[in-house]
């Protein structure tokens, strides 16, 4: 047992199947984790990376089980433990952090109780002792006034704070192994960096190992020592980060790296200087109605956008960047008049959108299309793809069904879907295919403006890069202006002519991509650039982390490998 004893986690030749369908989720996967080491498990959605993490502590969902192989954690095999022993393993040796900080804390229980549950159950601490320990831990994850925080409920904290609370809960009992399943994917760039730094720092402090599940290769490069790459349940590569990611040797990893958004769009046609802008946004304010404390007290509205002034030129791509709550989605919605401004106006083709109604509004709306973040909920599950896309066609085109079919088929072909998709239902398509359908639906109306609200952020990297290329190609062909809302700076850089930065509802920066990303003037933009973790090619076949030089005047990025 001497060699195996040194390993904290030893997973050898493990296969996991879903018993109902006999589907193989993991196929003969082996990895190991040393004490105090950071090991990343990386892969696209459906690769089985979360399943591997959960299998490690025997926490597989119902109907899913390990069919072959051996898992060992701190010298014991979870598979051989009874319920009580398994709970004790989870409560003493391991800790786990989840992706969604919003849903990983019980909304009806004070934070303190959730934190101390472990210590009281498994370490036999009294309430006072456990509270004391929790307060100390909260201080270390930088929650202000920890004693008071313990009595508060999860909804009183922001997303980043909740993830830090989760981190505190998972580390409170000083586990030997922390499993983090996409811990920062749902967070803003700056918060993501903070949480990652904090997590690795704390893990080092208490000497725990970290098993980091992620889809983000930049995170892997920045924080992990070794990495396992999974694809469709199989381990395609495994080893030190330098060998696997930075100098890729496997074709699959190379494909993943090639899909990273890199490069900058050349500033497009400067010829349109004389053409009037397609959208004129003047002093735009958007508010959401607040609640009155008492029926007669004044209503306190929440301001989402504050006097934003901006023009969008015909045919250009404008990236809107900002953290959650900065007002970028409100801007997207008000531009296609899903929202009305509280004051100020949006002018499209000479009309103030808030003033237009009836038939004229319907006509204008056809020229303003939007693609949403989540293609799964943007498509009616009961409508066939033909019906979905045909809805975007002009009503006059719908009279002749054969003609409508032909036009829809042509549109689908443009977004890269063959005719056989016409009669399918949305659930039969993959995420990327669904987003293509959404784009086809938007194109059907021949819009002059296409708003993409985080249209690629829910997609896998390889799918994301194909969709970005598709939007670019279609834009060149059809000449619509594209407003691309994103929190990902690399995506913005890749696709946009100009970048707008929103911060707490205000437009703090606006300029060409080069101006904003290379010579940022606002402190928020600088912080954003400094926090972003990006991986890019540094030499043929070699990749490295790129630090954006926030103050540099030169347009070239400096590179750390």
């Amino acid at each position, binding site marked *: 047992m001497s060699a195996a004893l040194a390993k904290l986690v030893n997973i050898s030749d493990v296969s996991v199947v879903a018993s109902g369908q006999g589907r193989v989720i993991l196929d003969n996967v082996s990895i190991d984790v040393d004490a105090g080491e950071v090991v990343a498990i990386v892969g696209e959605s459906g690769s089985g990376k979360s399943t591997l993490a959960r299998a490690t*502590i025997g*926490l597989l969902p*119902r*109907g899913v089980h390990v069919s072959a192989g051996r898992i060992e954690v701190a010298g014991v095999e979870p598979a051989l433990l009874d*319920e009580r022993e*398994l*709970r*004790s*393993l*989870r*409560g*003493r040796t*391991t*800790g*786990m952090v*989840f*992706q*969604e900080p919003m*849903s*990983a*804390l*019980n*909304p*009806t*229980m004070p934070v303190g*109780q*959730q934190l101390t*549950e*472990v210590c009281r*159950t*498994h370490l036999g601490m009294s309430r006072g002792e456990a509270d004391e320990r929790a307060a100390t831990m909260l201080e270390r994850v930088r929650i202000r006034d920890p004693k008071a925080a313990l009595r508060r*409920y999860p*909804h009183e904290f922001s997303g980043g704070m909740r993830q830090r609370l*989760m981190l505190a*809960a*998972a580390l409170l009992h000083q586990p030997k192994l922390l*499993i983090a399943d996409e811990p920062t994917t749902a967070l803003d760039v700056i918060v993501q960096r903070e949480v990652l730094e904090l997590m690795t720092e704390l893990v080092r402090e208490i000497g725990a190992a970290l098993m980091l599940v992620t889809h983000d290769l930049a995170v892997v490069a920045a924080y992990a020592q070794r990495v396992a790459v999974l694809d469709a349940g199989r381990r395609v590569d495994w080893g030190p980060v330098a060998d696997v990611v930075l100098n890729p040797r496997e074709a699959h990893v190379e494909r993943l790296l090639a899909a990273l958004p890199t490069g900058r769009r050349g500033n497009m046609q400067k010829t349109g200087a004389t053409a009037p802008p397609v959208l004129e946004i003047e002093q735009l304010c958007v508010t959401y109605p607040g*609640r009155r*404390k*008492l*029926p007669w007290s004044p209503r306190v509205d929440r301001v989402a956008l504050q006097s934003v002034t901006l023009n969008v030129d015909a045919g250009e791509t404008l990236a809107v960047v900002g953290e959650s709550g900065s007002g970028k989605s409100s801007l997207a919605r008000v531009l296609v008049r899903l929202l009305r401004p509280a004051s100020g106006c949006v002018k499209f083709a000479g009309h103030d959108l808030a003033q237009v109604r009836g038939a004229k509004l319907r006509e204008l709306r056809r020229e303003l299309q939007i693609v949403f973040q989540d293609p799964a909920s943007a498509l009616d599950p009961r409508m066939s793809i033909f019906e979905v896309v045909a809805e975007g066609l002009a009503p006059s085109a719908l009279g002749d069904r054969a003609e409508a079919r032909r036009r829809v088929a042509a549109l689908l072909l443009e977004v890269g879907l063959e005719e056989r998709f016409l009669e399918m239902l949305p659930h039969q398509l993959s995420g990327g295919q669904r987003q293509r359908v959404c784009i086809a639906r938007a194109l059907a109306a021949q819009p002059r403006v296409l708003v993409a609200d985080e249209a690629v952020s829910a997609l896998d990297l390889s799918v994301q890069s194909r969709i970005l290329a598709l939007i670019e190609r279609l834009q060149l062909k059809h000449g619509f202006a594209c407003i691309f809302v994103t929190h990902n700076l690399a995506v913005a850089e890749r696709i946009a002519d100009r970048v707008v930065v929103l911060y707490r509802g205000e437009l703090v920066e606006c300029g060409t991509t080069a101006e904003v990303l290379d010579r940022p003037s606002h402190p928020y933009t600088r912080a954003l650039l400094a926090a972003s973790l990006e991986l890019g090619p540094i030499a043929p076949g070699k990749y490295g982390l790129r630090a954006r030089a926030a103050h540099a005047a030169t347009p070239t990025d400096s590179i750390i490998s």
Partner: protein
Amino acid sequence: MMLTFILRRVAQGLLTLAIAGTAVFLLIRVIPGDPAQMLVGDVGDPAMVAATRASLGLDRPLPEQWLLFASDLANGDLGTSIMTGQQVREVIMQAFPVTASVVLLATAIAALIGIPAGMWAAWRQGRAADYLLVGITSVLLSVPTFWSGLIVLVIFSVKLGWLPALGYVPLGEDLRAGLIALIMPVGVLVLAELATLARMMRSSTLEVLRLDYITSAQARGVAPWAVLLRHVFRNAFAPTMTTLGLMLGHLLGGVVVIEKIFGLPGIGRLLVDSIVQRDYPIVQGCLLFVAFIFVIVNLIVDLLYAALDPRVRV
């Protein structure tokens, strides 16, 4: 904050009552059939009918009638029965405890069995305990009370002779006899309510069990009973509580079928009998009372919501 919330809900409740009261007032006056004519009987003397109508205040303009109605109501005066001359309030107060004891007892038993059963079935989803619960509740849901009531009556009173078929003894008078008289009606009602509550609880528990914070609790090594009690219950109970509230409000307004079958002098029977006899003041009083019960029960449910879920407290 909490006080504002309570005050707002109470105000909403009062408004609901005012609207319901006006609706009842109008309904009684719109439906065909003249209570004055009924009271006088088949005499055919128009003068006598007119005099009766005047004494009932039915000859005055509608707004005036409404004002009169509202001020009486505010004083707690629901009028007197046309048939017996009894105070409507007293008649209702006699009938309500009968209905309330059956309904409250049955609901409490159904909740105490159904809610844990539903949660347990969800925890064991797809296994024997779950299938058993789903099977039993399906059968219970498809059995109407008029049928199960009669069957129970035939078996336990007629065949076995264990329980009295009819008759009601107030619990305050003779606790033992009173309870014995309640066994069958309460039992039949429990069977009907149990299935709904268990199903409701099962499905909302299933929804909560899927959430990250449950997995998170399990990843912390929390025992199943503690997961169910501490983490699941408060989050999954809300839909069941709404159902429970609607159920209680509905049933407290009278369990007509059960009251009829087992000969209980409850609100449901009172209402049906008064409708047949066109005893409008009683019908009106009963309807108002039912509305009142509904508003009270739902007010309590709303306040409990806030107690269960800190996010509701605005």
